């Protein structure tokens, strides 16, 4: 999922990042990849080979919808938009993730002391 040598992200993280990014504004695939890259301060590179299957999975699940729009460079592109179900899913995922992180932190903290 990344070009710089990093570990794999946990499952579902890409979907979370996509939903989070789309929550701010609808955008097309390329802009989505760019936004995630910039927002992660160049730490995460989303490959197209992962991005598009993920987007379509989410389309199928009904978390995002899509329609034809125009890119910043004035090109006809498919613009993805988060749906109400997508927002709900994101909230669920984030709270689950936070619980997991909390648990992880505690375990690491206990081991340290």
């Amino acid at each position, binding site marked *: 999922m990344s070009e710089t040598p990093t570990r794999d992200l946990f499952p579902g993280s890409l979907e979370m990042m996509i939903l989070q990014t789309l929550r701010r504004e609808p955008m*097309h*695939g*390329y*802009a989505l990849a*760019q936004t995630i890259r910039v927002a992660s301060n160049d730490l995460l590179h989303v*490959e*197209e*080979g992962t991005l*598009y*299957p993920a*987007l*379509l*999975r989410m*389309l*199928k699940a009904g978390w995002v919808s*899509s329609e*034809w729009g125009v*890119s910043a*460079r004035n*090109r*006809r*592109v*498919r613009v993805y938009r988060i749906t109400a179900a997508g927002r709900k899913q994101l909230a669920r995922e984030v709270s689950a993730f936070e619980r997991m992180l909390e648990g992880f932190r505690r375990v690491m903290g206990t081991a340290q002391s």
Partner: protein
Amino acid sequence: MKRLLERLRIRQSIAEDLEAHLEEKAAAFMESGLPEKEARLRARREFGNATMIAEDSRNVLGWARLDNLIMDLRYGLRMLWRSPGFTAVVILSLALGIGANTAIVTAMDAMLWKPLPVDHPENLVRLVASRVRRNDLIGLPAPLAEALNRGSDVFEGAIAESEDGLSFTYDGRAERVMGAAVTPNFFSVLGVRTILGQPFTEPVRAGQWAAEAVLSYRFWRSRFGGDPSVVGRTIHLNTHPFTIVGVSAASFYDVVRGIDPELRIPRMPDGQSLAEIDLIAGKANFDWNVMARVRPGVTLAQASASADAQFQDVLRSSMDAEEAKSLGVGRLRALAGDRGWPEHLAPFATPLFVLFGLVVGVLMIACANVASMLLARAAARRRELAVRCSVGAGVCA
């Protein structure tokens, strides 16, 4: 439904979407100062295998199997088109194998399996008499059919038929034909229609004999050239004049498989006879194929029991006990009659099955040949497949 349409639309636009993505990417590189050609190259390199991405994305939406199948089929057709010689050899050898099988199975069906070309053949039973230590007796006395034809809870009607060679004279030309003597209700019980005229006139069907003949379709075509004005003409059978009253339907041959009598004439009522044609005499001779139509739902056992009772009556009334005893006939049995009497064709059944085995063998050999040819081709294509894989073809497990 709406969502399905939406998905179909998206499926179709994925490639377009990816293309737009690629262009955006190239444009971004150009904005950062790369020359156009290099920017495009780099965008494509980073992007990876666009076809695979499109494929993976489409598969997310489902129909992966169908997609793959369609692609495999298209690929297969393309490969066949590219080597017409190979394709021709494969098609030819399979066609020969399949054609031979079709021919034999068609022949077997026509000879052994196809029901009689009559109305509701499934309701027909043919009657045979069992004998002590001998084969079943197929020839029965015609009065049995008349007795069964009087109607009952079990039987709707019954017919009797017997064939013999007759001398047929028309237009001053004589020839040998096969004639069938039939009970006058033959056509109505079987539900065989005539394409010209009628299946015997009303008085004959009511039991009053007259010298009438119904031609078979094929004899009408071959001897009378399909002349539509043939009804009413006079022919001579064994020098006795008969009037043509009808032509039977083209599909009908007989209730006995393997024969197609040229014409049918009515059997005479009991006691009457014609000097010229002994075949139609109203006697109780054991020369008649007897077939009955049972009411719907009647089983063969019921039909057997009912017919046997009538048979014993006929035996008692039409011949003396001594004669009946000398014949050695026992009980009457009803057999399924939907395929008529197969005895004429029985000798051909075994050769036909042998032939069938042979053509199946030929088809197997053809298949094996085609398989080995495909194998040889696959071996020869190793290089091509290696190239396809290294340029990024999807790999099936």
